[in-house]
Each structure stands twice: as C-alpha cells, then as structure tokens.
C-alpha cells in the first residue's frame, strides 16, 4: 500500500507540478466565469466543449506519457507493474479534482448542474484514453494522438449532428450511441435541444460501459506489454 501511495505521488508530481497545469486550470475557470451569464450560455458551452476541456484533458494526460527509458527507470524505482499501472489512474483522477470542484461550483451558481455528469464522463473517457496511450513508449506520438482525440471527437460530433439538423434529420440509434461515446457533453447538449432522441440515461450508461471496457483493456495490456530499453 505504501508503495502505491508513493508511486501515485510520483505521477501526481509530474502532472500538477507542471506550471502549464495551473495556468490552464485558472485560465479556463476565469474564462468560464466571464462568459457564464445565461445570455452567453451557448458561447460558454461551445468554448468549454471544443477548447477548454480538450486543452485541459490533453495537458493532464500528457503528464503520464513516458519514453521507453523512463518507463524502465520507473518500473525499477516503483518495484511493480501493478503499482505503476494503477497509480497512473489514481494520479490522473486526483489531477481532475480541482477542475471538477471549480466546474461544479460554477454550475451550481448558474443552475446548470445537469451538465456535471456528462462533464465527468467526458473526463473519465479522456482519462482512460490517456491511460491507453500511455502504454506507447513514444511520448510524442501519445501526445499527438491524445490531442487529436480530445479536440476532434467533440467537434466531429457537433458538426455531424448540426449537419443532420440542417436536413431536418436526427441521428439513428447507432450514431446517437457513438455520439454519446465520443463526446457525452455534446450529445447531452443536443439531447437538450431535442436533436438526439436517445435519452441521457442510456447514453451515459453506454459511456460507463465503454469506460470500464477501455480501463480493463488498459490494465491487461499494460501488465503484459514488452518494453525495450
């Protein structure tokens, strides 16, 4: 247990000790507070979904990416594959806590707390994708792939549903499910606007199942994959 605590502390330090983490956290909260008047609600939502959230998710995820030689160093230092695999997840979760608290406070103040659940699910998805990418021993590749996933998914879902809306169509069950998986926040936003029929209950349930599958996959792969120093 002590080893697990130390390895979590180690990963946490490499994430939140980074000055960019604090800057982005404060910056996003300030921007949100400035925009979050009900008449700017849509601007706030778009800015959060397509820019601030992906930026934050990418930067936090990057904190656990390592090149091959650092992985080897950490395995020897932490003395356990499970230690490392598990403590990375815990460190990422802890890194999101200040963000979640700030967002929840903003949402409570402005009575939009229903967006908190999809926000948390979006973040959990970002966490499991970051964890899976952290298995790669090429930190630059992991960073690029994460940034692409985090920025492209929400925009892609948004464009797709908007295009359908312009044609007076709605996504079918499969594409609605995929929308909930790729970007719970966007899907929820469009459900509220009645562009998606699939209810958040099923959409979020799908998210939870998907997150669990990805996490189990991460645990299995990272415990068995080969590392060439």
């Amino acid at each position: 247990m002590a080893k697990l605590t130390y390895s979590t502390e180690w990963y946490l330090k490499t994430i939140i000790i980074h000055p960019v983490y604090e800057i982005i956290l404060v910056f996003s909260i300030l921007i949100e507070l400035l925009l979050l008047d009900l008449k700017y609600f849509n601007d706030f939502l778009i800015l959060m979904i397509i820019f601030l959230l992906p930026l934050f998710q990418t930067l936090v995820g990057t904190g656990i990416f390592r090149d091959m030689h650092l992985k080897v160093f950490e395995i020897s230092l932490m003395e356990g594959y499970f230690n490392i695999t598990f403590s990375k997840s815990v460190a990422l979760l802890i890194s999101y806590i200040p963000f979640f608290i700030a967002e929840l406070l903003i949402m409570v103040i402005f009575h939009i707390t229903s967006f908190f659940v999809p926000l948390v699910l979006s973040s959990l998805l970002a966490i499991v994708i970051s964890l899976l990418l952290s298995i790669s021993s090429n930190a630059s590749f992991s960073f690029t792939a994460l940034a692409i996933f985090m920025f492209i998914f929400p925009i892609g879902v948004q464009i797709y549903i908007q295009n359908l809306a312009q044609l007076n169509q709605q996504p079918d069950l499969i594409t609605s499910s995929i929308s909930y998986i790729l970007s719970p926040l966007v899907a929820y936003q469009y459900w509220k606007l009645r562009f998606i029929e699939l209810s958040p209950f099923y959409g979020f349930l799908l998210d939870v199942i998907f997150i669990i599958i990805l996490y189990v996959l991460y645990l299995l792969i990272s415990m068995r994959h080969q590392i060439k120093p």
Partner: protein
Amino acid sequence: MKLIFEHLFKYLNNNLILKDIDFSLESRKLAIIGHNGSGKTTLLSLIAGLLKPDEGYVSIDGIEPFFEREKIVKHLSFIFEKGNYSYNMSVGNYVKILKKIRDEKYVNDIADILELSKFENANMKELSTGQAQLVYLLSVLTSNKKIIILDEPFSHLDPGRYIKITKFIQNMEKDFILATQSFNEAEELCDEYIVLKEGEILWKGSKKDLYKNNLFEIYLNENNIPGLNVISDMGKVLIAEARIDYLVKLLEDGKILGFKRAGLRRIYGEINLFN
C-alpha cells in the same frame, strides 16, 4: 544467483537479436561483454522481465522473469544506459522522494558517494549524461533487491567517481550482472563472463578460466622485442606467452611499460572479435 537460459531466441522488429542462447551458471558477479549491437541489452532485458522470449526459456533464481513480473521486480533492480530524464523536478526533490521509498540513511550515504549534492538544485531535465547516470545509479544502488542489473553504468563517469563507485559495488552484499564493453571494468568487478557477438555466445567462463593460460598482456615501450611468442598484436599491446622473469627484465630495461595476465583481451583475440 542462478541463471538458466535454454535455447532462447529473441526477435526485435523482425530481426533476430539473440540466437539459441543456452547456458546455466551460478555466479555472484556476472559480466556480459560484447560490441555495440551484440545483444547485451536485449539479454539483460529478458533477465529483467521487460521482454518476452520468442522461443526458449529463461529463469533467474527459479523465477521466469516475463511471466512473473511482479516477483522479478521485487527480486532485482536495474538501470539501462539510455537518454536523459524529462522530469520537471530538481535532483534534490528526487532524492527526497527516494528517501520516502527507501532507507533514508542508505540513500544519504550513497548520495554522498555519488556526490549528488554538487548538483542537487539542477533540474532533472537539464542534467548532463554523466549526471543522469549518477541519478540512475542512486536509484538502483539504494534498492534492497538481491540482484542488480547494470547496463554500461559507468560509461560517462569521470575517473574519480568511477573509482569510488566501483569500490562501493565491489563491497556490496548484492549479486550483480554488468553489461560492458570495457575489459577492465569486467575483470575488476566480475568473476564470471559471457562474451556475445551478433546475438550468440562466443565464450563463457569464470575468472579461473580467463587466467588459466600462461599468457600476458604486455604494454610496449619499444617495438620488436625478441623472445615473445606473440598470440595477438594490438599495436602497443601484445598478447604473448612469456616467462615472468623475462618480462620483469624487459620492464627493468624500459622496453615494456608493464604487463598483466591476459584476460578478456586474450579471449577477444582468440575468437577474432578485434576484426
């Protein structure tokens, strides 16, 4: 430690890196010697459980490293000679974290031997290769494992630090496996040797096997010295058969600078590794 390899093959990126590695030995201080690309690091990675054998079997003290990874990382500690750190933290902070994980006094003692205080305020990202190597060494030497694996751990160290650290390692209670290209390092620190070339074991033996012949490494001051049965000529160093009293006379006459029993240099000469 007891090390067993049985007909082991290892491919990386479709290239055969290790070919039919088959040996078993019991040793406290093992050296793996070979050129760049001979497969030393891959062999060590298999022992450390980082890589999986494609064919064959490997075990150390009864543990199959890749298949018992949690066990093996509690049994041995390792460093590989690669790159620098990209952590945004000072060396001093790293040492503080290490003190929480390991025995604090032991960390302090070894940090003193490695003279880490001289650059404790430096950021880990900005260390020179030699400084990074010292930080790697701190991590492995402070572990309480039975065995340590060292992949060219001294290649960037200055002579002063090298002497201090090797002295410490020689007196350690731990067993170790050292991969190196340096004959001196291997001969000074180890008592069992494996020579690799292009993924194959060309020679394996103990210190006794290494020095069993009446052959000497002779460091020349003058060329064309008669009375030596030269086995291998490396310019200013000869591997030759000679009587000790004759060598002493050559030394007194200033014709040679010194001599020592031929060890790994002889083996390299015999198996044509200098070519």
